[in-house]
C-alpha cells in the first residue's frame, strides 16, 4: 500500500472508532412516514396528472385509430393528428434537447423538482407507499409488523399488499404495451387469454420493473442507479431553491421542558422531534445540510410546518430557500428576484425559442415527403430526338391518412423539356404530372429532363422539383442538378 501521507492525504484528529466496515453492505430498509401539507398536495396533484395521462391516453381514439400509438412494426408513430416516420427522427432529437433544457431550467430554479414531484420513480413509490400504508399501517405499524415473527396477521397483510402491488404493476405493464400495440385489441386478447408471447413478456417485464422499483428498490434507484441525480449538482448555484433547514433559527435543538421556561429560552425552534427524518423517503436528516440523496420532495418541510403550528412557532424552519438567502437573511421577495438571474433567463430563452421552433416546424410539416434521386449512370444521355437528357426518380411518400393527389412540376430554365413517365415531352412550364398515392404508401415517378445541345454550358445546373398536394395545398420544393458532361 502507498503511504497515505505521501499522496497529500492528511490524517485528521478525528478519533477512529474501532468499527470496521465492508465496502459492500446491505442497506437498511426505510419506512417513510405519511405526511400531509402543501408540497405533498403538489406531489399528489402531479401523481394524478401524470397517471391520468399515462393510463388514460392510450384509450383515446383519433378518427379510426388510437390517438397515441407507437407502431414499431409498421415504423409509424401516431400522436393525435401527427404521423411520424423513421425519417422524422429529428423531432425526437428536438424533444430530447427540449427535455434536457427544461431539466436544466427547473434544476437551476428549484433544484430537484423533477425528482421530487414528477419522476416515475417518485410517483410510483408514492402510490406503492400509499397502498402499503393503507394495508400495513403507517411507519410505526409497519416497523412493528416487520419485527414481529411470522403470524397470520403479518402473512395475510403482506400477502394482500403484494397482490395489490402486482395487480397494479401488471396494469401498468399492460398500459405501457398499449402504447405500442392497439390497447383495445390488447384488452380483447387479455379477456380471451390470447396475448402473443412478446406482448406477455413486455407486460410482465414492465410490470416487474414497476413492482421491483416502486416496491423494493425505491430510494436506492435514486442513490445508486440514476445518473441524473449525480450530475445535477453541477446545475445548482447559490441562488437555487433547495430544501433547507434554517440552522440559525433551529439550533440549539432540543425537546421542550414543560417546567423550565428558562431552559426552553436557550433552545432554538427545533424541538428535535425527528419527524423530518421519519418522513424522508431517502432516510436522510435534512438538518445536516444539502446531501446528494435529497430528492427535493419537501416532505420534511411539510411535516416541520405542522410541528411548528402545534408549537405555536412560525412556519418555515425547513423550507425552500437558497444558500445566498440563508447566509444573507434575504426576504422572500429578494429570493424571488434572484430567480430572474442570467442563467435562468438564458435557459428560458433557449427553451422558449426551441419550443417555438418545434411547434412551428410541426405545424408546417408537410403531410408528404419528397426525395429526388438523379440517375448516376445515365448522365447526359443523348435522347431519341438528339437532346441531352438526365433521368430522375421522384419518390413521394404520403404520410397523410387519406389518399392524396400530388402534382409535380420542374423549376428550371425555360429551355428544358420534361418527359414524365409515359407522357409526351413538354416544355417545363407546361409539363405537369398528377398522381394519386394511397395513405402510408410511397410511389416513384420516373421522368426525363432534356435540353437541346449547346444551350447550356458543360457542368452542373441547379434545378428543383416542386410537389404540391392538391388536397391540402401544401408545397415542397426539392433541389437537384442537371449535369452536362459532353
Amino acid at each position, binding site marked *: 500500500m502507498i503511504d497515505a501521507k505521501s499522496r497529500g492525504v492528511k490524517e485528521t484528529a478525528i478519533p477512529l472508532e474501532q468499527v*470496521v466496515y465492508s465496502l459492500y453492505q446491505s442497506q437498511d430498509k426505510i419506512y417513510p412516514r405519511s405526511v400531509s401539507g402543501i408540497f405533498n398536495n403538489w406531489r399528489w396533484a402531479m401523481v394524478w396528472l401524470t397517471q391520468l395521462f399515462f393510463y388514460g391516453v392510450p384509450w383515446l381514439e383519433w378518427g379510426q385509430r388510437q390517438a397515441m400509438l407507437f407502431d414499431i412494426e409498421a415504423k409509424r408513430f401516431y400522436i393525435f393528428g401527427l404521423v411520424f416516420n423513421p425519417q422524422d427522427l429529428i423531432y425526437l432529437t428536438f424533444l430530447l434537447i427540449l427535455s434536457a433544457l427544461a431539466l436544466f431550467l427547473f434544476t437551476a430554479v428549484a433544484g430537484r423538482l423533477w425528482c421530487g414531484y414528477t419522476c416515475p420513480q417518485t410517483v410510483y413509490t408514492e402510490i406503492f407507499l400509499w397502498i402499503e400504508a393503507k394495508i400495513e399501517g403507517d411507519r410505526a405499524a409497519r416497523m412493528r409488523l416487520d419485527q414481529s415473527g411470522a403470524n397470520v396477521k403479518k402473512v395475510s397483510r403482506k400477502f394482500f399488499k403484494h397482490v395489490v402491488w402486482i395487480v397494479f404493476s401488471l396494469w401498468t405493464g399492460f398500459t405501457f404495451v398499449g402504447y405500442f400495440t392497439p390497447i383495445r385489441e390488447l384488452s380483447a386478447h387479455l379477456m380471451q387469454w390470447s396475448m402473443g408471447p412478446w406482448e406477455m413478456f413486455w407486460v410482465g417485464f414492465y410490470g416487474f420493473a414497476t413492482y421491483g422499483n416502486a416496491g423494493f428498490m425505491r430510494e436506492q434507484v435514486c442513490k445508486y442507479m440514476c445518473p441524473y441525480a449525480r450530475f445535477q449538482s453541477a446545475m445548482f448555484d447559490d441562488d437555487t431553491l433547495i430544501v433547507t433547514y434554517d440552522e440559525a433559527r433551529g439550533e440549539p435543538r432540543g425537546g421542550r421542558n414543560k417546567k423550565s421556561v428558562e431552559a426552553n429560552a436557550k433552545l432554538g425552534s427545533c424541538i428535535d422531534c425527528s419527524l423530518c427524518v421519519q418522513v424522508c423517503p431517502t432516510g436522510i436528516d435534512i438538518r445536516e445540510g444539502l446531501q446528494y440523496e435529497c430528492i427535493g420532495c419537501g416532505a420534511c418541510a411539510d411535516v416541520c410546518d405542522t410541528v411548528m403550528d402545534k408549537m405555536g412557532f412560525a412556519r418555515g424552519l425547513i423550507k425552500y430557500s437558497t444558500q445566498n438567502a440563508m447566509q444573507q437573511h434575504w426576504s422572500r421577495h429578494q429570493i424571488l428576484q434572484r430567480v430572474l438571474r442570467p442563467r435562468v433567463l438564458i435557459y428560458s430563452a433557449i427553451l422558449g425559442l426551441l419550443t417555438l421552433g418545434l411547434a412551428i416546424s410541426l405545424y408546417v410539416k408537410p403531410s408528404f415527403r419528397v426525395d429526388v434521386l438523379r440517375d448516376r*449512370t445515365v448522365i447526359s444521355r443523348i435522347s431519341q430526338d438528339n437532346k441531352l437528357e438526365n*433521368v430522375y426518380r421522384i419518390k413521394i411518400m404520403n404520410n397523410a391518412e387519406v389518399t392524396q393527389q400530388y402534382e409535380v412540376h420542374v423549376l428550371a430554365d425555360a429551355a428544358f423539356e420534361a418527359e414524365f413517365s409515359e407522357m409526351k415531352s413538354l416544355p417545363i412550364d407546361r409539363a405537369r404530372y398528377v398522381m394519386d398515392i394511397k395513405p402510408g404508401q410511397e410511389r416513384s415517378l420516373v*421522368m426525363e429532363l432534356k435540353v437541346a445541345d449547346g444551350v447550356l454550358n458543360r457542368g452542373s445546373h441547379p434545378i428543383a422539383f416542386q410537389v404540391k398536394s392538391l388536397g391540402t395545398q401544401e408545397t415542397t420544393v426539392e433541389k437537384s442538378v442537371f449535369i452536362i458532361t459532353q
Partner: protein
Amino acid sequence: MSDFVHGFWPAFITAISLGGIFGCVLLLWFASKVKVNVADDGSNGHVWDEDLREMNNPMPMWWVGLFIITVIFGLSYLFLFPGLGTYAGKLGWTEIKEYEAEVAKTNAAIAPIYAKYAATSVEDLAKNEEAKGIGQRLFLNNCAQCHGSDARGSRGFPNLTDHDWLHGGSPEKIKETIVNGRIGMMPPMAGALGTEDDVKNVANYVLSLSGSMYDSGRAGAGKAKFGVCAACHGADGKGNPMIGAPNLTDNIWLHGAGEAAIIKRIHEGKVNQMPAWQTKFTPEQIHVLTAYVWGLSNK
C-alpha cells in the same frame, strides 16, 4: 470470418475479453475482503485540500448481485455466441444465417401474392397495376443502376422500352435473359476486313443501312467486304437475336452512333455482359420482373 487475418488477433481479442471479465471478478472479490475504519462522522479519516473528507458509502449488496449476474451473462454470451476470436459459439449463430432466415421469412409472407402472379401469363400480368408496381420496385432497386430508372438505358446499356432486342423480346427470351444473363461478343474485325481504307468503307456501308449520313462511294466499296460481317449480322444487316448480334439497320447504336464509333468497334470489337439474376431473385420475382420489362415496350 474475421477481418484480422493474422492468427495473433483472435488470441489477442480472446485474452482482452476474458482478462477483462476475470479482472473485474478479481477486483470484486478483493474489494469484498477490504475492511475500512470509519469515524463516528461517517468519514474514514482521510482529508484532502483542507476540508474534503472521504466518507464511507458502502455499495448495496444487491449491486454486488447485479455484478455477478452481469459476469455470468457475459460468460454465457461468450460461450453461446461468437465473441472470442475465431470461436464460433455453441449456438453457431452468424449474421448471414440471421439474414437468410429473415429473407426466408419475408419470402414466405409474400409467397401467396407471388403464387397468384406465377399462375398468370406475362401478357396478362403486364396489365395488372399491382404487379406493375412490384415489378417497378424490383426494377428500380436492381436493374435501374445500368438500364436507368426509365429503362431507356444509356451508352453500353440497352434501352428496354423500344422494340429493338439483341436477344429477342418475347416473354420467354426476356425471362431467359434475366435468369442466365447474357454475354454479347463481337471480335475485332479490322484484320479480316483488310486495310484501314476497307474498314472505313465498311463503316460507311453500315451507316447506309440505317439511312444515316454516309459517303456513298465508300459505302459501295464497303458492301463487298460486308460479307465478313454478315456471318453474324446477316446479309441484310438486320442482326441475329440467336447470338445477340445487333440489327444495324434501325439507327439504334448501343455503343455510339457515327462513323468514328463504328470504326472503333470494328477495330476493337466489344464484349458486353449482363449478369445472371437467378441467384438474387426467386422464379416468381423473375416472372413479375419479366412482365414489367415486357410491358415497357408492349403497351
